[in-house]
């Protein structure tokens, strides 16, 4: 009985846009100058919004939130490949992706300020609300994918999560079920190297997230997450595979969380400034700008214009957000069930009476 290799696999990494702003022409996805412009504008808007939100949080006008700065390449590159009839199942670090899907900045500000009305993402946008428990929402993506397939729609589902989520049981269950049922789902892992303080090397002994796909018989690929063209290319391919063959894909976008985990964290406690500085040099927006300048799509004046336009939109949203009246206490009881139950009616009445007496 000989011992022979039964099966062997390899995992590919896709890179298109180099740090010097040149691209691999063969791998460059077909994108018009206008599309590239829109990609860039949205990445800048995402960054400016993130920076403004951080200031608002430090002023006490917003609560805790997770920043996206440094991950715009991964996040925007991925959603740029979606069609409006596709679904997005986000985790909690996806403000940029949510904006792209049509959720307004005002609404996101409202949500992150602790006003639940901000969570009402219109159903027509096919974008689920922010999901804070780690990894659990991947199964919802599988269920939606199953439903799209069952309904005969050719829409696909994209779900975001971090590398921390790949340690959870639900991650395994989701990839397994996606493989078994052959559902049109793209599992998009933003591997930003840290789950709060725990580095990727302490999260798993596997050298990549992408290879985890192999254990479930689905396709897996790694991309340079700070390379928006590579991300777009890989996601578009995965979505096509999903639509045509209803096959799931795991994409690992190799990126970096240049900020703290959330506004409640202090990353200096567990990683060096040098490490962060090295990644800052690989900034996804700057890399794209490099390319656009060389192509003649961008010059200093246009860059300033785009930044100013983003700031104007952000300022407008902040103003609109600040004029929203505070929620009424009735809001607490409004959406527990389709129909308010008797105990809830009683509890609501008691609360309102209590506060009436205090006026």
């Amino acid at each position: 009985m000989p011992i022979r290799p039964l099966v062997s696999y390899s995992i590919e990494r896709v890179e298109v846009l180099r740090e010097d702003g040149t691209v691999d022409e063969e791998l460059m996805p077909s994108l018009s100058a206008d599309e590239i412009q829109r990609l860039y504008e949205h990445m800048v808007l995402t960054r400016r919004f993130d920076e403004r939100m951080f200031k608002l949080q430090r002023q006490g006008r917003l609560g805790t939130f997770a920043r996206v700065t440094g991950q715009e390449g991964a996040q925007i590159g991925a959603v740029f490949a979606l069609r409006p009839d596709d679904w997005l199942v986000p985790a909690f670090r996806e403000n940029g992706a949510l904006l792209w899907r049509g959720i307004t900045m005002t609404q996101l500000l409202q949500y992150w300020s602790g006003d639940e009305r901000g969570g009402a993402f219109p159903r027509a946008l096919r974008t689920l609300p922010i999901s804070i428990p780690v990894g659990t929402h991947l199964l919802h993506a599988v269920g939606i994918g199953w439903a799209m397939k069952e309904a005969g729609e050719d829409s696909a589902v994209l779900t975001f999560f971090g590398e921390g989520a790949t340690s959870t049981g639900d991650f395994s269950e989701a990839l397994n079920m996606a493989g078994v049922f052959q559902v049109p789902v793209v599992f998009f892992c933003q591997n930003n190297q840290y789950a709060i303080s725990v580095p990727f090397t302490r999260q798993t002994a596997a050298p990549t997230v992408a290879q985890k796909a192999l254990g479930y018989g689905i396709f897996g690929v790694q991309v340079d997450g700070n390379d928006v063209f590579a991300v777009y290319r890989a996601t578009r391919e995965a979505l096509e595979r999903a639509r045509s063959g209803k096959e799931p894909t795991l994409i690992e976008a190799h990126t970096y969380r240049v900020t703290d985990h959330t506004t409640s964290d202090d990353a200096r406690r567990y990683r060096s400034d040098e490490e962060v500085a090295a990644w800052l040099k690989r900034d996804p927006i700057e890399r794209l700008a490099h390319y656009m300048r060389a192509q003649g799509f961008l010059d200093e004046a246009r860059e300033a214009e785009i930044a100013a336009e983003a700031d104007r939109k952000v300022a407008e949203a902040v103003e609109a957000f600040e004029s929203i009246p505070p929620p009424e206490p009735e809001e607490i009881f409004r959406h527990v069930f389709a129909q308010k139950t008797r105990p809830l009616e009683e509890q609501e009445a008691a609360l309102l009476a209590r506060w009436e007496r205090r006026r």
Partner: protein
Amino acid sequence: MARLNMVEAIDQCLLQEMQRDERVIVLGEDVGRDGGVFRVTEGLFERFGPQRVIDTPLAESGIVGMAIGMAIAGFRPVAEIQFSGFAYPAYDQLVCHAARMRNRSRGEFTVPLVVRTPYGGGIRALEHHSESMEAVFVHVPGLKVVVPADPYEAKGLLASAVRDPDPVIFFEPARVYRAIRTEVPEEPYTIPLGKARMVREGRDVTLIAWGAQVRIIREAAERLAAEGVAEAEVVDLRTLSPFDHETVIDSVKKTGRAVVVHEAPRTGGFGAEVSAQIMERAVLHLEAPVVRVTGFDTVPPLAKLEDYYQPDVEAVVEAVRESLRF
């Protein structure tokens, strides 16, 4: 004597328990190098190293499941679940295994495990960071459930939990973590599990709470006394499972009135158990129905509406007036 906050008191307890017994180990997400997201395990990693203060991958079921195995094999793991709102993946491990291993093996294998986890509102946090779901753990036979009210209590109760031969869920009120300081003796001490604490003596009404609400009923008692309304007796349950009915019943027999306060949802909350025990054991002593001041049967609202949800001093004072008027 040093005046510590609850974070410091728990940290000190863990340090001393780890010094006392080398089988005691700490594991969880960010408990090591980062010292815990609330800094409760600050300094332990530096002191005891990565073999005894273990940063785990992000997997609550994994943390508790692995800790069960460690406990079976002779260690005394103190696992941290970063927020109790994320404990549910581990619920299966707790309910199906931690709580039953002793029974299943007829005492051959046991799980001396502590699961520490912050709970409760009042910290203006994100969704899943403000829940107070102690009742769903109390309902599991084979789990002990402890909820300290202040730093002194936390140190003594946690020491008992670590030394206990059975699994203990240790709910730490996140709102109290840094809000108050009490005198905490440097030397190790224990407070027995299953024994409630008489916080304040009174004669007109018994106020009962645990965790973050103990401060509230205490303040309510002071206000009632200052206004000449009532002299309230204040009982801190400390341990919900096992429940010390004796302290509660003795008090109610004296006062004839009881108000139970919790921030957990009303239906099926532990207040219902307290009320039922009073009915069973002291109904003839009651001058008025037991009154509950609780959270609602809703998702705890986010920051903007949080104050409407949380029981406060005024609500407790009102409840006492209601009881007195009956």
